[in-house]
């Protein structure tokens, strides 16, 4: 019951006037970036990052995490009212949310979405409250080999469960690693991969990559289809809000199942986007009214929303207790932690109790604040969507340019940001996943250090990764996840011998990945 005592202490930190004000600001900014296409939680949080350098770490993380909650909610607003997902993770909400709103029940759709989202977030936070310090305690005993094994498992789970084409995921991950390696090597001190550009010695900052990949890239995808905001009425009938939320317990099976999927996908980095799609797919298969999905079914809104928020929240668990972020936004926040001088990982629970429990307590409060604010401000933000995209787009470009520049006052960063924008567009267009790329940029260095340290300990023998039960389990689980897509392909291969030629090359390449 230590945890509850710590949590109460955390509440005494989170519920102070300045922190409540930060939550309100964070949530409002979050809804704003969530609503605007082209700006999302990852680049919203990284835009805010330079402004937090003067703050106390706990205040800074409350601001950033509140922004994250706001963005998760804001993405659902546009999905339901305009059929435009403001965030990639709320795409699945459009399937049933928009049809329901179009049929004249926008309040029901919004209230159902927010209610189930809050439930998902709550389950995620409860999980963090009870599990995070335990995981951290276990992780305190970790050596470099165990750490590398955990990193390996995290990367492998992107390949096995991320939902994108496995080889594309691997390429995205490897590119992230290579980008992380640019600059001065922390172990030997030598300069790597600068290709003769002196300015690259300081490395490529992840904020620059996030601005380009998510900001410019998403903008380019959005500009392609000239969308007209055919809004349905955005007026909120308060009585219907409570009625819709009151009806939620009837769908408790869907709620619990989606929350479980969300938590799982958040902790093993699959990310909120994959979680919401997976949850929607499973709900459609198992619901008695599965064939009505897509026409405005309640469970079609509940499932993706609950999973989305459960995943978004629980993505902070591995970030806090292991130093491995569970989503792109969590990766950006972790970058922030390192800039504020904190060392993400189990030591946080020993050295920075105020920070950890203040953050966890703020998640409870922040989500309540977010639900209240998002309901109150739906009409305001819906009006924002009526501003023509041609005006918003150049403003977002300027925000990204200034954001990239202000990281380290370097013009090269701005040019690189634009380059990342093109890469982000191509990757989005061709379904290369972006989250693993960002994750690898942020923690690539640490994974490499862990690998090299364990090699030093074992004098170059890979046997250290099978030296004890824990590390063996982690490595084997990672390899199993890497091979999962391949195993799923096998039955199809057997049925279609005609395409066998291409499949065997797939197998070979995949096996090479594992042996390397």
């Amino acid at each position, binding site marked *: 019951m230590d945890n509850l005592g710590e949590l109460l202490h955390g509440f005494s930190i989170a519920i102070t006037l300045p922190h409540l004000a930060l939550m309100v600001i964070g949530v409002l900014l979050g809804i704003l970036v969530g609503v605007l296409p082209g700006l999302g939680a990852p680049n919203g949080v990284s835009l805010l990052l*330079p*402004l937090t350098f003067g703050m106390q770490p706990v205040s800074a993380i409350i601001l950033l995490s509140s922004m994250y909650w706001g963005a998760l909610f804001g993405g659902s607003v546009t999905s339901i009212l305009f059929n435009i997902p403001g965030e990639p993770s709320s795409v699945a909400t459009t399937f049933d949310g928009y049809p329901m709103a179009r049929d004249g029940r926008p309040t029901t759709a919004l209230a159902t979405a927010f209610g189930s989202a809050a439930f998902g977030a709550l389950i995620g936070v409860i999980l963090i409250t009870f599990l995070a310090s335990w995981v951290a305690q276990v992780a305190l005993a970790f050596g470099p080999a165990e750490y590398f094994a955990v990193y390996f498992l995290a990367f492998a789970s992107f390949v096995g469960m991320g939902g994108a084409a496995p*080889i*594309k995921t691997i*390429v995205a991950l*490897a*590119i992230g*690693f*290579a980008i992380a*390696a640019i600059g001065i*090597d922390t*172990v*030997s001190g*030598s300069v*790597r*991969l*600068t*290709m003769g550009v002196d300015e690259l010695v300081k490395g490529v900052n992840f904020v620059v990559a996030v601005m380009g990949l998510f900001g*410019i890239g998403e*903008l*380019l995808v959005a*500009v*392609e*289809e*000239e969308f007209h905001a055919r809004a349905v009425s955005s007026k909120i009938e308060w009585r219907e809000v409570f009625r819709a939320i009151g009806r939620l317990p009837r769908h408790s099976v869907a709620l619990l199942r989606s929350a479980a999927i969300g938590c799982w996908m958040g902790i093993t980095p699959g990310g909120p986007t994959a979680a919401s799609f997976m949850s929607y797919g499973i709900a459609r298969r198992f619901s008695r009214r599965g064939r009505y999905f897509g026409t405005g079914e309640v469970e079609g809104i509940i499932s993706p929303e609950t999973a989305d928020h459960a995943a978004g929240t629980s993505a902070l668990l591995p970030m806090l207790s292991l130093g491995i972020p569970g989503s792109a936004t969590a990766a950006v926040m972790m970058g922030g932690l390192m800039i504020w001088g904190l060392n993400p990982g189990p030591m946080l629970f020993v050295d920075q109790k105020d920070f950890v429990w203040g953050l966890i307590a703020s998640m409870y409060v922040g989500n309540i604040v977010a639900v209240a604010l998002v309901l109150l401000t739906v009409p305001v933000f819906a009006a924002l969507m009526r501003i*023509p995209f*041609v*005006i918003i787009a*150049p*403003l977002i*470009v*300027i925000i990204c*340019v*200034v954001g990239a*520049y*202000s990281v380290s006052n370097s*013009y090269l960063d*701005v*040019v690189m940001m*634009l380059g990342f*924008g*093109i890469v982000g*567009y*191509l*990757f989005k267009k*061709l379904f*290369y996943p972006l989250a693993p790329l960002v994750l690898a940029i942020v923690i690539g260095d640490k994974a*490499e250090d862990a*690998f*090299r340290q364990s*090699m*030093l300990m074992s004098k*170059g023998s890979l046997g250290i990764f099978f030296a004890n039960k824990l590390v063996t389990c982690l490595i084997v689980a990672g390899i199993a996840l890497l091979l999962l897509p391949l195993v799923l392909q096998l039955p199809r291969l057997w049925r279609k011998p005609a*395409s066998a030629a*291409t499949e065997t*090359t*797939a197998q070979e*390449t995949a096996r090479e*990945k594992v042996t*390397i």
Partner: protein
Amino acid sequence: MISRRALELATAVLTGSFGLTVVVSSLDNGIGWSSAGVEAGTFPFLTGIIIVLGSLYNLVRGVVPAATLASVPIAITSIELRRLAGLFVPAAIFVAAIPLAGMYVASALYIFAVLAIPRRQSVPRALGMAAATALALYVVFERMFQVSLPHGALAAAFGF
């Protein structure tokens, strides 16, 4: 019009050549095992190899007509391409103009150009928005957060 296949190929070539650069330049740092442990180039070298192999696989996947590719033959239509260029080209010119004109002047010109030249907004309104953008940037960054944005070579020549 750009086909899905062409786009897949271009991206695979792009990632592959990045991987190749990584492989070649990590060789300078030395790969393998030395008295000081794993040498600095080893890890980048391996990631480079993975990138190259993965890109080759994606390249082959792009050439061989598979079911997934056949269903979406066209990735970008000519109208979409024009819209993309309409956003990206001005943005690139804006970025290129920053060292000379400075962030404030460049962003004001950028906003004015994209709003007034295609006649999306009347000239006075576009002028107003351009001025407001530059002013907002100045107030937020230079004043509130004390972050100095580049003033540009032109401003320097005039003694700012």
